[in-house]
């Protein structure tokens, strides 16, 4: 686990994570006060949960994927990964340790989000409170299935190409899966072009992991059967992404 320790120490000493951690801690409480809540105070609590999750997505796309891409690039360029290869650390282990070091810091942000979203916005009604807790747990699961493999991809692309390119490709995929598909749908509404329709089907439908509306509008937890389907789909994409990432991973440039 030497590579893990080395990478974690490097991330911690750079301290950029502190900016995002600070934002995740404070903005969910500050920003709801800027909304027109005066005539409807019940807006405040869902707005807190909503902002906490939006910031976690922002930190994942803005910080985590960037961190993975630059670490992969830097370690491969500086020969660190070659060195660990000579020590007998396999490619899978290297990728796993780099992933874990980035994720260790990010896990702290996830815990903050989960606590803010679950416990500072819990509905008073007992049944609704249960649904609220379950929805938050479901959200954590689906969020992990999207972000965790993308981090592996950004690391792997970083080791092969340069950091900026690796980051651009990974956030491109993430943003396309979260938002871009919605625009493609509008385009497909009156378009029977088979190529575009196939493109739609093979696109990564990451937007399925966005359960924010279930929290904001108190829709309740997603049904178990439906959650299994979404988790199976996103889990499949995750395995695929990790498998592809391994193919891109290189110890040296």
């Amino acid at each position, binding site marked *: 686990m030497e590579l893990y320790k080395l990478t974690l120490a490097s991330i911690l000493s750079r301290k950029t994570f502190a900016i995002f951690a600070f934002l995740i801690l404070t903005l969910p409480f500050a920003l709801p006060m800027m909304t027109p809540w005066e005539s409807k105070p019940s807006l405040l609590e869902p707005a807190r949960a909503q902002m906490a999750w939006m910031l976690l997505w922002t930190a994942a796309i803005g910080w985590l994927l960037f961190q993975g891409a630059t670490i992969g690039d830097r370690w491969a360029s500086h020969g660190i990964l070659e060195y660990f290869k000579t020590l007998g650390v396999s490619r899978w282990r290297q990728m796993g340790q780099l992933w874990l070091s980035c994720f260790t810091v990010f896990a702290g942000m996830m815990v903050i989000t989960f606590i803010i979203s679950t416990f500072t916005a819990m509905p008073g009604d007992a049944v609704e409170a249960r649904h609220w807790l379950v929805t938050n747990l479901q959200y954590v699961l689906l969020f992990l299935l999207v972000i965790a493999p993308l981090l592996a991809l950004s690391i792997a692309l970083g080791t092969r190409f340069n950091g900026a390119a690796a980051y651009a490709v990974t956030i491109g995929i993430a943003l396309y899966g979260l938002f871009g598909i919605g625009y493609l749908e509008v385009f497909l509404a009156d378009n029977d072009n088979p190529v575009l329709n196939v493109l739609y089907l093979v696109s990564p439908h990451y937007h399925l992991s966005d359960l924010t509306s279930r929290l904001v509008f108190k829709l309740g937890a997603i049904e178990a059967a439906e959650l299994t389907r979404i988790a199976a789909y996103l889990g499949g*994409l995750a395995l695929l992404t990790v498998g592809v990432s391994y193919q891109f991973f290189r110890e040296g440039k």
Partner: protein
Amino acid sequence: MTMKPSQFASPVLIAGGLALAVGGLSSLNHESSPLRHSRNPFAIQGSAYGKLLARLSETTIDRVWHLGVEQIVPHYMSGIGHGQNGHDDHGTAATASPAKGALLKSAVAGTPVVASPQSKTLLHQGKRWFQDRVIAQHHRTNPNSLTDRHLATVYRDIEEMLLRSFKLDPTHYGAYDSYHLFLTTHDFGGTPEANEQAVRVANAAIAAAFQENEDPEPWLTAAAAGMNLYLMDAAPYMQKGETIPLGILKEYRDKIGYCLTRFEEIQAQSEKVGNWDRLSTERQMEIAERNLFAKRTFKQFDAMIARAEHPTTPATPESDVAKREESDQP
């Protein structure tokens, strides 16, 4: 040469992942509920942030409207209110409509309009100086007004912005009513498609209010939407000079009456729990005035229904309404 098990792992993951994803996708994408993007990422529309953004977007729409359609410096930038300065107000720009191909003589002649200083203190003069620069920054010097096609693009942009703002907060009076007005005003919309859209928008505003039992304001928006729906339904009869069928009158009296009753119930409750006191006096007065206006218009329904039920009585609707108005006054 033997292959290590770790070399198999990646192809196995890719194949297994593909199979799982395809299986998940086909079970997600069935006929009854096809796979669809929510078009509302992170539930912004309709949330507290949606309400905030809908209010913030008013300024943007105002700016595009004044610079693009009226072709004058927006009032919020210049600090000059409506009618305060005839030299560069709506009237002059409107006569220079592109349809007539007229030149914007009045707006172009001479230097940009400079707002009159209201105070002599250094602080105010300093602020005034910047405001005058902002006016100059947006002052139109092109002698030609926008072409028809350019203006059509501006209209479409405004429509899109109004729709976006309405989606962000369908319960907001400003967002709903300005969009409705835009759709039904003959110069900009007024087509059958735009009227259809206006009906959909009004129904969406009413549906949004029905979810509300804490904030009274959405019910006033719903009452305004009901009134707009009534006017659209009644328009064909009014154009032909026929009396409006009793069914329509009664239907809308009930609908709008319900919205106004709900407004008053929730407003009273809001005063009781202290939400009402948190609003500024200006906001309270604005809501109260809007309520008074809605109530006054609503009262006409009783008069019109009475007239439709007893068509033989001498028709002096104006005096009837006037009497009711007078009896309103404390």
